[in-house]
């Protein structure tokens, strides 16, 4: 059995690395993919194009506009006077945010009566819109507090007595990923996706190819047992997948400063459990496909929802209520929770045992089902 297993493993490695494109896909592509996703599909929002609509044209209104873009979340693309012009820039997409400073801003400021400063936000990118709303609300609140403080201290100075002032400020503190760096959030996601794609699609295609080319028939007439054949076909890609996860974590922490707070043992154990699900799914897909092409299609049919429902891009809490229960059927969800928990929070087995249990249940059942189906199909 060991002889046969070794023969299959060696053959799979040879075939994978014989084809330079496949070798590239397996080893280099994940890192490139993560780098691109980390930088380009940057969920971290800053430098939002902003138009300042200054209808007051006073030094106070100019100050407000300058302060709005000073911190970096907003980037001034234009200053206009006419509100219609500001709307046009929003419509064209030149600006995503408009700060509308009304006529009489300086006058009301001097009279100390409340001023309505309006912020218009382009909602087509909900994530960016959310960031813009929060940042502008925070900006205006801080500004209001600043103004009151200034007034009070002036009043106190005029009265000649200096006292400390009671002040209340709301200071939200974000834990684990304080600068809301998206790369930190993305790296575990990319690692999961890469492992998923490599092991599922490559396994499904590899078996379908043997069937398509007729080599499966030649193998079936040797004493090689189906279970050994499957193990031998899966093992190399499991190993390559784990190497990829390791590389992604290393590159992720080097390039994007992803912390590795938890134990690598947790990462390794969950990866292996996750592999049972993905390899099992790959085998299953191969048993319902007649050709490599069908295997690829079947693979994507499974991968797309698995990735989307797993919470790779969209946090599960933000999904529609009717979809959320479905995410419990997605092994990606549990693996992602384990990886993020372990890397970002330093969670261990004690915190994550539910996810581990779910992953194990999925893995063992999918694998068992697929291996049985594979054996029966050889009939």
């Amino acid at each position, binding site marked *: 059995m060991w002889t046969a297993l070794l023969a299959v493993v*060696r*053959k799979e490695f040879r075939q994978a690395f014989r084809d330079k494109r496949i070798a590239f896909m397996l080893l280099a592509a994940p890192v490139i993919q993560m780098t691109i996703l980390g930088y380009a599909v940057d969920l971290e929002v800053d430098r939002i194009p902003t138009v300042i609509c200054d209808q007051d044209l006073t030094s106070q209104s100019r100050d407000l506009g300058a302060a709005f873009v000073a911190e970096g979340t907003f980037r001034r693309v234009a200053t206009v006077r006419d509100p219609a012009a500001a709307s046009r820039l929003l419509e064209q997409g030149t600006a995503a945010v408009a700060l509308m400073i009304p006529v009489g801003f300086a006058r009301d400021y001097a009279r100390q009566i409340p001023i309505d400063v309006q912020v218009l936000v382009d909602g087509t990118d909900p994530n960016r819109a959310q960031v813009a709303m929060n940042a502008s609300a925070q900006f205006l609140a801080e500004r209001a507090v600043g103004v009151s403080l200034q007034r009070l201290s002036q009043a106190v100075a005029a009265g000649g007595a200096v006292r400390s002032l009671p002040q209340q400020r709301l200071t939200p503190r974000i834990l684990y990923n304080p600068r809301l760096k998206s790369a930190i959030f993305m790296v575990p996601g990319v690692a999961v996706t890469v492992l998923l794609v490599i092991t599922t699609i490559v396994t499904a295609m590899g078996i379908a190819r043997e069937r398509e*080319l007729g080599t499966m*028939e*030649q193998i079936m007439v040797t*004493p090689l047992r189906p279970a050994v054949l499957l193990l031998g076909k899966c093992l190399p890609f499991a190993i390559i997948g784990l190497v990829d996860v390791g590389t992604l974590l290393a590159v992720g922490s080097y390039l994007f400063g992803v912390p590795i707070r938890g134990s690598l043992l947790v990462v390794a154990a969950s990866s292996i459990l996750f592999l049972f699900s993905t390899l099992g799914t790959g085998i299953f897909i191969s048993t319902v496909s007649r050709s490599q092409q069908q295997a690829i299609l079947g693979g994507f049919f499974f991968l797309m929802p698995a990735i989307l429902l797993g919470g790779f891009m969209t946090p599960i809490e933000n999904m529609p209520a009717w979809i959320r229960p479905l995410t419990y059927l997605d092994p990606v969800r549990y693996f992602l929770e384990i990886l993020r928990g372990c890397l970002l929070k330093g969670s261990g087995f004690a915190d994550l045992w539910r996810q581990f249990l779910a992953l194990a249940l999925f893995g063992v059942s999918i694998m068992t089902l697929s291996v049985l189906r594979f054996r029966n199909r050889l009939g």
Partner: protein
Amino acid sequence: MSGPTGAGPVIEVRDLTKRFGAFTAVDRVGFEVHAGEILGYLGANGAGKSTTIRMLCGLLAPTAGTALVAGVDVSRHPQKVKRLIGYMSQRFSLYLDLSAAENLDFFGGAQGLAGRRLRARSQAVLEQVGLLAHRDTRTGDLPGGWRQRLALACAILHEPHLLFLDEPTAGVDPVSRRSFWQLVRGLVRAGTTVLVTTHYMDEAEYCDRVGLMVDGRLAALDTPAALKARLVPGRLFDVHGPAAGSRGRLAAIAGIQHVEPFGAGFHVRMADPSVGAGDLAGRLDAAGFPGAVIDDLEPSLEEVFLEVVEGWPAPANAPEVPA
């Protein structure tokens, strides 16, 4: 592994049947193969040759009937059969992206060969099939005939005493076909028993016995000479020339049993084997066909095959056709 010791047949098939749904691909086939012989299996596409072989290899479970291969019942112990046989499937099935040696490595490992023994056997079979110089050539870069030889090398790597070859020479040029058959005959001389399917009639002449398969049934099985004597009895002549006449008028001549158009003339079969070319010329003359050119013909297996397939008026001593 020691070879079968000549006692009894190596393959014993009784009423072997395979149905796919309502369709019967192999219908109550029975035969025996003896140690050290080449049994050829002849038949048109879809006759059921591959299905029969695949049942014997333990790849397909028979619907009914029994098959003992090297004494092992294939429907009960398909796994056990696999250790004892070599098989070359109908479709070329090696890894094209691996070299010749790497293919041998893999299939040898799958058979349980490893280490020094695997290396020695690889070397030996590559030498045997004449591919030693190409051991590191990508299989996809080998010409078709060479690939077939490599496939044969993979099938005999573990030294099976029983070899199943399913259309091993399909789509291969005549020269390569001949060299392939020389290899097979060499194996048989060394004691291997071979069951081979083909649809090249000329290849059947290499076989000790030939089975003819028609629509899932084994219609005839015997040595090529016996098949010819039984199914194409009498004497066969080639008749051509300016006045070879029409088929119907030739067939009406006394003593002529069958007329088959062939090229510009006819193949004419006389019922009485003692009739010579001269006698036939006289009869043709009398019937108003003077000057026909007449040559003696040795019946080929093609005629035998046509006899069976087209259901010519079967001679009284024809083998029983299973109903």
